[in-house]
């Protein structure tokens, strides 16, 4: 018997009793034609294997064996199987119920998401409004408060927010000489004008100066497009049948925010409108482009009555 045949010799009783797995049984079957000794073992055990099992007499098994077996096989929480008979109708009802539940949950989830998104949007709009109001308040504060405070506040805020302060056309007011605003005292009510074109916002707050012969204006631009290196924004005061009066030029930072403080010798509310145009970096005597933003000055709001 060669090694392979010898390897299977001890499995021949199981082979004859039909106890081997399919693969092993097939392996032995395939070997038999080439292993005469293995085949002889099969021939002998074919008739003897089963009766040999019964050739050993039974013996008295200890009583505790059955108890042990019953203990091992008793039902536990894990192995206990609950038998539920479910009819086809019940299955259909269960399936329908499950479908409705899934639709209900999905629908609720969708509306929850929608509500959440709307709330986010509302929150964003509220922030914008608050910011806008804050700026209005700030602008009003610049004019209403004591000149020193206004200057400091304006400078501080502009510096903090990195908002460039424009250059007014009045030589007495420069970006670095805002202390001249100290001359102004908040004796007169401040006026506010807001305007928006597309996503660009503009606010103008003005008040009559302490000398009563000049008017101070603070113009705030928000979300304006950044200027190119060879252009600048210019603010005009417009009156019908007259050439526009330039009050200053300003640039904006990368957030599109800019500031311009100016003074004029006429009441600002005596003009019809303000407008902003895009001009060459040196400024222009008259507007050379169409206004980016225009606001009717007659729509101003008195801050004392509408703003506290």
């Amino acid at each position: 018997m060669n090694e392979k045949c010898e390897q299977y010799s001890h499995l021949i009783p199981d082979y004859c009793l039909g106890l081997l797995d399919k693969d092993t049984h097939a392996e032995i079957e395939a070997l038999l034609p080439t292993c005469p000794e293995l085949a002889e073992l099969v021939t002998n055990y074919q008739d003897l294997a089963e009766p040999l099992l019964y050739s050993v007499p039974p013996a008295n098994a200890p009583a505790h064996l059955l108890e042990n077996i019953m203990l091992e096989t008793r039902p536990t929480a894990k192995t206990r199987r609950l038998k539920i008979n479910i009819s086809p109708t019940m299955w259909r009802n269960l399936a329908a119920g499950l479908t409705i539940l899934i639709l209900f949950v999905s629908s609720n989830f969708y509306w929850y998401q929608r509500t959440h998104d709307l709330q986010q949007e509302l929150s964003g709009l509220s922030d914008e409004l608050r910011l806008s109001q804050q700026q209005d308040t700030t602008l009003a504060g610049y004019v209403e408060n004591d000149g020193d405070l206004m200057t400091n506040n304006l400078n501080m805020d502009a510096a903090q927010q990195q908002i460039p302060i424009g250059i007014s056309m009045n030589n007495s007011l420069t970006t670095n000489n805002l202390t001249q605003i100290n001359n102004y005292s908040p004796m007169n009510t401040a006026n506010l004008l807001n305007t928006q074109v597309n996503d660009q916002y503009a606010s103008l707050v003005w008040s009559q100066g302490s000398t009563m012969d000049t008017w101070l204006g603070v113009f705030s631009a928000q979300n304006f497009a950044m200027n190119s290196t060879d252009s600048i924004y210019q603010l005009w005061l417009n009156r019908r049948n007259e050439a526009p009066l330039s009050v200053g030029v300003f640039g904006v930072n990368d957030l599109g925010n800019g500031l311009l403080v100016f003074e004029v010798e006429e009441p600002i509310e005596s003009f019809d409108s303000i407008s902003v145009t895009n001009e060459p970096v040196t400024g222009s005597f008259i507007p050379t482009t169409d206004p980016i933003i225009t606001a009717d000055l007659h729509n101003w709001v008195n801050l004392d009555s509408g703003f506290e």
Partner: protein
Amino acid sequence: MNTEANPKNNPSGQAQAQRLQPDQILMQKICQRDQSALASLYERFGNAVYGLALHVGQNQTVAEEVTQDVFMKIWERADQWDVKRGKLSTWILAMTRNAAIDRLRKDNRKVDFSTAPLDKVVNLLAVEDWQQGQQLRILLQQLPPEQAQIVQLSFFGGLSHTDMADMLDIPLGTIKTRLRLGLQKLRDLWLEKKS
């Protein structure tokens, strides 16, 4: 009326139908986790299983553990018994033999087999099977002792030729010859007895 053709009217057919049915019903109940059915199975085969386990393992403690293992396997694999492949008693005893041999291998023990004297029958498996088994046992005693020993080592010990040669310190060729001759003679005697 052909009584033989109609199994209901055929006494032996009726007995045969009755003999098969209890085993199938019993195993079905065990599949359904009926402990009383397992207890009933133990009542019928417990002593036979224990006796075979004791014969192979030659150790009482081992025999008890093997018996428990066998009935646990039956509990878990009741669905694997197929009436078409053989009798339930044969399936159980074959499982017992293998479990006992596996235990021997696990313990790395090799046991010697001597033909035990006939004991009083404690529990009859099925009368016919037991009677035939006893006859074969008697025939086994008629073999030369060295051949009987090799036959038992082969069948009840699950040893290969090489294992037996190593264990008995006998040449491999001698082992093969003794086994071949022993099985041939036993088979001849057995077939002669049956006929």
